[in-house]
């Protein structure tokens, strides 16, 4: 088996989820690397969209901002934020990747604050940005994050971005688009999806070298277990070569 770090593993796992012909809205960092890797391997016709307006670029190197010139390099269109978000709301955005300081058992995310006084928070984070928008509009929302019990909490102290809200059909009842929601959570240890009825997070695959106990010890709530938990296939030599040589040669993301 090839030698790789956890960031490379998460990116390669995420890239495999993006099928050819799909449309993905990405931010900077690991999500962008996953989309670029997918485009350069099994999904050459993957449409990459950036929230500030970059539509279908041939991203030449890691963008630093979702609005910098790399996001429109050889693009099909330089558009704007309203157009990109409206495209999502119309139902043409298949995937997005998001993250946060907290994620709960229903895939809700906190990227706003820690502490109860909203006007004077203990710790302030950037806020939603486009996360609440993308999570509401994309058919399938995914998260790449380290497995850590401080991050995987039973209930987010503040919900910036909707997951399955309170589970069951609560998300659709709120008025959010029917059929869209959290899809896969990819960590350094495992891959989770959501049990179809309760919409609770469910472990479906383990990365090589990790057991169920490792994941449970690093998760702040009880995970549902799939009937069959498989071993997540490790990155191939080819995936790693493309990731290292073409996607992120300066190791901005995979060197973290």
């Amino acid at each position, binding site marked *: 088996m090839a030698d790789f770090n956890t960031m490379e593993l998460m990116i390669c796992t995420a890239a495999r989820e993006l099928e050819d012909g799909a449309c993905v809205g990405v931010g*900077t*960092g690991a999500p962008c690397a996953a989309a670029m890797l997918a485009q350069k391997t099994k999904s050459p016709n993957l449409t990459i969209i950036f*929230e*500030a*307006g*970059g539509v279908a670029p041939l991203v*030449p*190197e*890691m*963008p*630093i*901002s*979702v*609005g*910098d*010139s790399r*996001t*429109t390099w050889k693009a099909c269109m*330089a*558009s*704007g*934020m*309203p157009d990109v*978000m409206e495209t999502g*709301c119309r139902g043409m955005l298949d995937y997005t990747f998001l993250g946060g300081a907290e994620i709960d058992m229903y895939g*809700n995310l906190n990227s*706003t604050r820690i502490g109860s*006084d*909203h*006007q*004077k*928070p*203990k*710790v*302030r*984070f*950037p*806020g*939603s*940005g*486009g*996360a*609440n*928008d993308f*999570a*509401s*509009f994309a058919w399938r929302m995914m998260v790449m994050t380290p497995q850590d019990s401080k991050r995987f909490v039973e209930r987010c102290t*503040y*919900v*910036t*971005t*909707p997951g399955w*809200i309170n589970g069951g059909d*609560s*998300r659709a009842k*709120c*008025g*959010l*688009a029917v059929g869209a929601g959290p899809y896969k959570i990819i960590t350094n240890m495992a891959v989770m999806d959501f049990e179809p009825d309760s919409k609770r997070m469910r472990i479906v695959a383990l990365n090589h070298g990790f057991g169920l106990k490792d994941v449970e010890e690093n998760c702040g709530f009880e995970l549902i277990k799939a009937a069959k938990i498989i071993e997540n296939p490790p990155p191939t030599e080819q995936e790693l070569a493309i990731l290292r040589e073409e996607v992120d040669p300066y190791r*901005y993301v995979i060197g973290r």
Partner: protein
Amino acid sequence: MDVIEKGVGRIFTDPDADKAREFFRHKSRALVSKLTTVKEAVKELIKDGDYISVGGFGANRVPISVLHEILRQKKKDLGLAGHTATHDFQILSAGKVFNRCDIAYIIGLEARGLSPNARAYMQSGDVEVTEWTNYTMSARYKAAAAGVSFHPIRNMMGTDTFKYSAAAISECPFTGQKYTLVPALYSDVAVIHAHEADIYGNCRVRGILMSDWDIARSSKKVIITCERLIPNDEIRRDPTMTFIPYYCVDAVCEVPYGSYPGNMYQEYFSDEDHLREWLKVEKDPEAFKKFLDKNIYGVQDHFEYIERNGGIRKMQMLRQKEWLFRGARQ
């Protein structure tokens, strides 16, 4: 229309479309020169207490010269649209010039990390906040640009982002589906950096527009800085290129490299060394004060700022970097 639920946040600007119409009724449509300096434009058009919107995307096509001038003129009690705000937010936080903020994205500089000073400012309790998202802020500008008082959107429901916003949830009269309604955002002043403009304020931009189409149309006053002035004949030769018409604009300032240290599409890339230095120096209050004196308070204008940070040589390197020319990498 029945309101099912409402956020607890405050609306910092009046969404009333008739009041806005009354303002725009008296706004000049005259095709006259609006050419001025950044110093004059900030002095004349931005008043203490005004609500301002900054065009571009944080550190991409941002009107840096105007933001620095706002600090030099010690403007205070401003309202701010924290819409995709990154380095612009960092600058305005350094001067503590605002005391209320509509938040979509603040404090962070995306992949570069978080600004310690901006974060401390937002944790101090000195800034009143209302939460939104990037798209909902775009929709608020869209409503205002369309001359209506709200825009329906299909997100924010079920989250604390809604709870701490000033939005409302209601039902569609045609389908019965729930929608979030966001109030129109008419800013007092918008500040936008464009690639090209004529002296009347007709503007051209290349690359992505972010929300600037709607920001320019919905703001009561608009200050334009541009990389270069072009003749009105050139505007009229190809009107398809115009994205802001002259009657929206109140001031035009020619500021080459006006987005530095930010990125300007097909002109120059961002100065990552300088932005890294900003983030680093903020951790030490003494060093940060010196840094601000060197780069903002102690300089006359944007040219002097650029000269203190590598001058034309640096600009050439950033131009080459923008086009990914071999050997231009830092």
